[in-house]
Every structure is written in C-alpha cells, then in structure tokens.
C-alpha cells in the first residue's frame, strides 16, 4: 500500500473498514464527527450497516446488540458522549463480548470545549462504568499508529471478549500525516460459540446477559474477568522507548503529550542531557513493569499529560517512591509546546528533587505561580 496523506479521524474510520467492520453506530460530536461522516458514505457503499443513532446511549446499545451476534462493530464519540455510554460499557463488559470504541477526547469537564485533551484517561482506564471490569485502552500518538491500533483493537477485543477502547486526543483526530492503510480484510464471520445469531437449526439456544442474581455466580464472573486481565497484562503491554539505554531521567507521556515530549528530549540530547522517553501505547494494561525496572536505575521521572495528572498515579504506583516522580500537565484543551517540556527537563535535571513531595501539588504551585 502506498503512503497517503490521511486525516486522523478519517484514517481510523477507513482502518476499521479494512479490519472488517460490519456495523457502525454513532452520533455526531466534535472533534470526532469526521469518523461518522466518513462511514456514512463508506459503509453503505460496501453494503455494511451504518446507523446515525438517536444518541450515544442509543449508539452504545446498538453496538451491544450487534456485538452479541459476533460481528465486528464499533462506535466513536468524544468526551461528553462517551460519558453517556458508561452504563452500556459496563453491561458489555459484564456480558463478556467484544466491542471496539473510540474516544477523540476534548476539553472538559462538562461541555467544556472541543480542543485536544487527555482528561478522560481515568474514565477509560480506571472504569467510568459501575462494577469491576477493565477495558483494554490504546493511545496512538500518530495517524499511522492510530490506523495500526484501530486494526489491532478488533483482534484484541475478540481475543479477550473484552472492550477495546482507542483514545485519541483531538489533535490526532484532526491532523494529517502520511500513512499506509492495511489491505482490505473483508468480512469473515468467525462462528463464535457464544454468539446469539439465531439457532438456525444448527445448535441449542444461546443467551447473552450480564445478570448473575446469585452473588457467588457474579463473583465467578468477576474472577473470570480478572483471569483474562492477568493474561492481557502479561501478553498485551505495548510501549515505545526513546533514548532509554543511558537515560538518567525518563519522561513518560502518551499520545500528543508523548510526541511533544519527544521533541523536547531530542533538544535535550543535543545539549548532552541524558534523558529518555517512554511512550505507553497501551495505557491499559499499563506498562508498569518497564517503569518498575527503570525506577531501579534512573534518577527520576517526569510525567507529562494533557490533564491534571491522571496517568501520573499509575506511574507512581510502579515507581513506589524509589526515585522522584515529577509532573507537568496542561489542561482544558491546551497543548503544551516543546519549550515547556524542555524547561521542565532543565528543571528536573538541574534542581534537587524531593522524593516524598506530591508531584501534583508541586506542579499546581508552579502553574499558579506562572500566572
């Protein structure tokens, strides 16, 4: 496949189509709308299902229904719309069926704005829906990666009968980059032994539900989900390392924040500063192990996010107070400039850091100091 210039939102839409997407259900919302608009043309022309749902609530439950039949199905939205999907997401998790969701995150809370944000990390990673469940969450930082992860998301969802959510900050949805599309996979319906697609004279009836009236039975489901999760944590963690071999300090950032950090790291390297970058690609399962290892040999971490420090806590959990973990975040749709991260690198590499201090509070003080 040749490299083409793709806009992030349209790229993930086409990638999903090539991965064998059979049905899309969605509702317009900026900065995600191009996904829906693209598929409103593309799906019918392939004779596949496209429905503009009455709402995100409708969309997630259409996804739920279609997913029960075992086909590849997805929905996409942006922050407020995704909040409306929380009940449905919890049901899908409790029913142990595969579903793919996309959140092109915008500034919040509330209506907020439509600028790029990463403030839905906790909602996606630590379960915005009720009950114990864990979705797989992928965080691309470029259009090409968005395409690749979009395709992978369907395989992962099916492999683990789990929800796979791709979270992009708005800028990745809106930007254009050269990228290669995968070959058209076309529709091949695996016949799952769980799908409720009608007996059709071939088998006993099947039921899919998330009810376990007896707590002991529900607990068995919870344990089943935990069992899968252990496998996922063992086999599916993905991240990218930059300049880590000799790094004394490690920056951790995903998505656009990770890209910006890369620019800053390069500049620092030119100045001979031994700093590296760890960019989580799966934020759930989280790459705790590599961070744990790094914590054993580096002098400190700098977590950078486009939120108030959400992934930060997962990094701190992995570091366990062995070395300082510092934080720099921008919120509300502000995308940090390279200079800001460079400035932070300078700060952490030149000043004496405090292992016991709370990085979020220190950062807050610096932020308000700035103003």
């Amino acid at each position: 496949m040749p490299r083409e210039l793709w806009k992030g939102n349209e790229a993930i839409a086409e990638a999903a189509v090539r991965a064998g997407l059979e049905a899309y259900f969605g509702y317009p919302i900026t900065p995600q709308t191009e996904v829906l608009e693209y598929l409103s043309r593309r799906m019918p022309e392939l004779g596949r299902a496209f429905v503009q749902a009455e709402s995100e609530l409708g969309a997630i439950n259409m996804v739920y229904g279609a997913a029960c039949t075992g086909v590849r199905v997805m929905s996409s939205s942006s922050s407020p719309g995704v909040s409306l999907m929380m009940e449905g997401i919890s049901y899908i998790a409790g029913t142990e069926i595969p579903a793919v969701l996309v959140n092109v995150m915008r500034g919040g809370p509330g209506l907020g704005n439509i600028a790029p944000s990463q403030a839905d990390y906790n909602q996606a990673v630590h379960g915005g829906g009720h009950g114990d469940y864990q979705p797989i969450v992928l965080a691309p930082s470029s259009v090409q990666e968005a395409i690749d992860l979009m395709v992978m998301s369907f395989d992962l969802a099916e492999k683990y009968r789990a929800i796979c959510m791709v979270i992009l900050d708005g800028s990745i949805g809106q930007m254009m980059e050269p990228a290669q599309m995968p070959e058209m996979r076309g529709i091949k319906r695996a016949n799952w032994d769980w799908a409720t697609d009608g007996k059709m004279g071939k088998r006993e009836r099947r039921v899919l539900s998330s009810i376990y009236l007896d707590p002991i039975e529900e607990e068995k489901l919870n344990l089943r989900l935990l069992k899968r999760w252990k496998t996922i944590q063992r086999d599916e963690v993905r991240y990218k390392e930059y300049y880590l071999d000799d790094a004394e300090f490690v920056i951790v950032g995903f998505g656009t924040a990770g890209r910006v950090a890369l620019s800053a790291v390069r500049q620092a390297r030119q100045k001979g500063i031994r700093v590296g970058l760890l960019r989580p690609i799966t934020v759930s399962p989280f790459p705790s192990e590599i961070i744990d290892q790094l914590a054993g040999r580096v002098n400190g971490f700098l977590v950078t996010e486009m939120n108030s420090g959400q992934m930060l806590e997962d990094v701190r959990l992995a570091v366990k107070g062995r070395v300082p973990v510092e934080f720099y975040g921008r919120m509300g749709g502000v995308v940090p400039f390279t200079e800001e991260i460079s400035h932070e690198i300078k700060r952490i590499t030149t000043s004496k850091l405090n292992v016991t201090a709370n990085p979020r509070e220190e950062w807050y003080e610096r932020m308000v100091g700035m103003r």
Partner: protein
Amino acid sequence: MATTVSNNLVYERPEGFTETPTHYCPGCTHGVAHRLVAEVLEEMDLIDRTIGVAPVGCSVFAYNYFDTDFVEAPHGRAPAMATGIKRVLPDRIVFTYQGDGDLASIGMGEIVHAAARGENLTVIFINNANYGMTGGQMAPTTLPGMKTTSSPNGRDVETQGFPIRMAEMLATLDGAGYVVRRSLHDPKNIRLAKKAIRMAFETQARGLGFSMVELLSTCPTNWGMTPVNSLKFVEEHMVPAYPLGDYKVAAGVAQVKV
C-alpha cells in the same frame, strides 16, 4: 350400530417454550403474553431464526422461557439492542419484550426512534400501569388517582403528570408499520391479542417496518388484588383509559391476511 372413540389433542404447551416454569407471580398475565408469543413463533415456524431481547423488569428472565436465542438489554434500551442485531442479521426475526417503565419511561428515546427509523422489529409492550419488579412504583401508564408505592396518595396528575398512551403516540410516526393495543383480561381479548401478535410478526417477516402490540396486563401482586379481580380491574379501569384498537396499519400491512 357401534362407534369408535379416539382422542384428539386440543391444546398443549407450545414448543416455543422451554421446560422452565416462569418466576411470575400466580395469575400474572405476563405469562399469557409469553404464551401467545411462543404460540405465534411456533405457528409461523420462526423459533429457529428468532432472537429475543429481554428488558429490565419482571420479564427480565424472559430469556429463560422462550426456546430461541436471547439477549438481555439495559433498562429501556431493548429497541436499540434489537436495532443493532437486526441491522447485521436482517434475515433474522428480532423482537423486544418490554414493560411500561422500561419502554415508556426510561426507554422513551429508544422506542420512538426505532419506530421513526422504521426498524424492522416487533415490540411486545406490556402495560400493567406500574413498575412490577421494583415493587410497584408509579409508571408513566399509571392511572390518575391510582395508588402506588411512589404515588402513595394516588397519582396526582398536577404534580406527577398524565398517563402516556404509547400506541397513539407512536402511531404518529411514518416509520411505524403496525401499532395496535389489545388486552389480556378475557378469552375473547386474548384471542384478539394473539391475532395482533401474529400480524406484528407477519409485518416484520415481510419487511414492512416497525410493529408493536401494546397489551393491557395485570400485576396482582402490586395492585394488591386477586388475579381474578385484577382482570376485572383491567376491564373496568384500564380499557377505558387505554382504548383497544388499531392505531397504525400501514397500507402494505393492511393487505396481509392471516
């Protein structure tokens, strides 16, 4: 002149059912509605390609009783789930079975839009004027002045609103192919109800769009009446408030003979 005597089976439990006895309270006409659906699916030979969508409500366990594939929807979202299923498997028969809290309260958006889109689905809508499963709270269909656990002094229309007549409302939508109201309070009406359910599934089988049969049903437990008196209550109070009849029979459907 001698005679021989042979025995004919006049009626037996429909094949559309599993063996499982229902969990419904004694005399609850949810059971009658179930039976009619099972009989129709059997008569139309659809059991094998039917996928049912259960609601949240007393009929949450409907999936235990029908011998078809089944899924269980979040409260009120059955029409959306059914849409998802039908859109990817258009040749299957998909029906939802919903109570009045499920369909007319929390699920209002989903049912109206499924009808407006003309989704090729069948909806069995049980109107028993209250929330049975959670212990008899007020439903959108609760009659004015009717006492429930959340309208302890009787439904006050000034502060708690007026009953919603779903069949009449959905009939205003162009996507609706067959929308009628029937009752389960006596043999005659049960027969008419079955006819309507048959028509609804015929509508879907022929791809003529959205079909819904609203059924006036009892809740002896929460109404605090015997099953027999509950039937009287339906006849005397619910039928007048929810007139039986055909509210939308699209041209194409009108030609269907059963």
